[in-house]
């Protein structure tokens, strides 16, 4: 193992010197203020409307959703989603907790809920997609593999560097989202209670397991799940990067898979075996929030298992191909 460390150092230097990580930070620094601004505007509007009484606002949202349930034009799936939403909001109201109190921590929590299935995987792909194919495109793979180092060690060093940078991206997303939104909403909010543990049974919500968690704890749980998704997506992109020679093709393949996942999630339910696809299982944090899963029968443990199996298979494929393949170009 001792000679693996310098190899990992090499890979980290290359990622940093290619400025891939800076691009990721730059994207975050540009987009997070945009989201913050949008959030600020909508908070302003509801404050005017409801005289900054969140109970009034929440009650209004519950009534709106209830009204739409009686409409024939709303598809059944949406109705189930709304029923669940109504029950949860009523729970918050009963316990006198504001689910959307505007502060930096709540913003971060909401932002990550939305970012986990597409935005964060995209940032990780910025590094993962060309970690191997980039060396093939430029031809430097020949220099790399004619060193007296076994091929699996070279690949392992790349994988370790990738996991390190995936972790760094997840942490930076949290930090940047918190710091920037805090400018607008204030940096408080770590000790607000958040309810979790909603069990979805059909179109009903089982409240027996619901308990309040302080928001900072909730954020940590979220962080773990986001990291897990990031690592799994990273490993899949890693495999594609080994299999495909061109970086562009590697990015397109992974993007297509992720976007297909988002579309399938919205179309949902009817095709039940789609739940074994990795890309519909990315939205792990929605299990924490207690949302209706895209396909019946999906639970947090199920999704974790599906992602883990996909990631492990990807790593096995990547290593067996890379160590045997003839480098012809």
């Amino acid at each position: 193992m001792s000679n693996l460390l310098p190899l990992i150092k090499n890979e980290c230097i290359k990622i940093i010197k290619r400025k891939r990580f800076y691009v990721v930070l730059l994207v975050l620094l540009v987009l997070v203020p945009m989201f913050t601004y949008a959030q600020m505007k909508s908070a302003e509007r509801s404050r005017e409307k409801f005289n900054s009484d969140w109970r009034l606002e929440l009650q209004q949202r519950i009534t709106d959703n209830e009204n739409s349930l009686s409409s024939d034009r709303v598809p059944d799936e949406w109705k189930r989603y709304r029923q669940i939403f109504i029950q949860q909001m009523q729970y918050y109201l009963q316990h006198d907790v504001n689910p959307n109190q505007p502060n930096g921590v709540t913003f971060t929590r909401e932002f990550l809920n939305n970012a986990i299935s597409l935005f964060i995987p995209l940032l990780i792909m910025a590094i993962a997609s060309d970690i191997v194919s980039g060396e093939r495109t430029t031809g430097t793979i020949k220099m790399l593999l004619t060193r007296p180092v076994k091929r699996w060690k070279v690949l392992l060093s790349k994988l370790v560097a990738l996991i390190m940078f995936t972790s760094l991206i997840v942490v930076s997303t949290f930090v940047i989202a918190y710091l920037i939104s805090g400018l607008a909403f204030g940096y408080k909010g770590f000790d607000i209670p958040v309810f979790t543990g909603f069990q979805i049974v059909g179109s009903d919500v089982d409240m027996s397991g619901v308990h309040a968690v302080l928001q900072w704890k909730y954020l940590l749980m979220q962080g773990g799940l986001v990291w897990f998704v990031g690592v799994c997506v990273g490993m899949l992109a890693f495999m594609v990067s080994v299999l495909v020679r061109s970086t562009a093709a590697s990015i397109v393949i992974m993007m297509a898979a992720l976007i297909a996942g988002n579309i399938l999630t919205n179309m949902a339910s009817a095709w039940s075996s789609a739940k074994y696809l990795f890309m519909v299982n990315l939205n792990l944090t929605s299990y924490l929030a207690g949302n209706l899963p895209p396909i019946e029968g999906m639970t947090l443990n199920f999704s974790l298992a599906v992602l883990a199996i996909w990631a492990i298979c990807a790593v096995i494929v990547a290593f067996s191909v890379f160590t045997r393949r003839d480098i012809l170009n």
Partner: protein
Amino acid sequence: MNKQAQEIVLSVQHVKKKIGRKWIIHDVSFDVRAGEIFGFLGPNGAGKTTTIRMLVDLIKPSSGRIEVCGYDVNRQQEQALRCIGSIVENPEMYSYLTGWENLEHFARMQPGIDDQRIQEVVDTVRLDRRIHDKVSTYSLGMRQRLGIAQALLGRPKLLILDEPTNGLDPKGIKEMRQFIHQLAEEGLAVFVSSHLLSEIQLLCDRVAIISSGRLLAVGEVDELIAGSSDHVIWDLNPAVQGKRILQKLDYCEIVDRPEDVLDDNVLAGMSPDAIVTRMHAAHTSRAVERLVGAGVQVREVHRINPTLEQLFLQMTEGESIE
């Protein structure tokens, strides 16, 4: 130096390679010894680069065995590759790193290479002035030198260079040649591929000639040349009479189409009346006596070394070089 006595550094035995359904390399065997410059000559697409890739374990032979310093390249990669420094095709380095950072990168992949060693190879290839600039700003010649620096980094016993003078200007080519000679004198075995026959003649001690994946010949460059006949160019006055006399000599044969056997630069310097003959060089003076005796003025007699080009054309029966 008696090269036969030197140890064998690279041994290639009955190597074959099949890619898809096609055999790319058919049964190639040769040895390279310490201190010699071994040329690997063939037209583009003959299988030179494929063979080189097999020597450095980038691709695996379908059958046969390649040994470097006694280690099997495909089974004991780490030990074998420790003895090899190589540039396969172009010297592709990380263009977003500086030359020095590139060398540091490769040094980390091999134990026992410190900053002092990096400085040594930088001095050897005379790149010290620009070594801390980004590689993306380097000229092709500088990249080639940086490529050699990275190949020398691990103190190899075998240096493999794929078309080392490709893209260099004439001055760069001369420097590169001197440099390779110097390395061989220090005891390194150098394996050089080229499609330029003059390059091999000027550079190499021994040569293997490959075409369509088959070895046509392996041997000393001088011996291979001695095996083919000499050409002599005559500039005579009057030319017609002189030609008649030469025709009568039994040891002398007139070449009717000189453009088939001579280099372009020789043809360009020839006078339009010149006569080209194929004969043994030892008979030249006898022929001159006969001509002078018959009152023919001999303005110029010029012996032409056969080129590997001719040799190659004889062996491949006319397959084009480029």
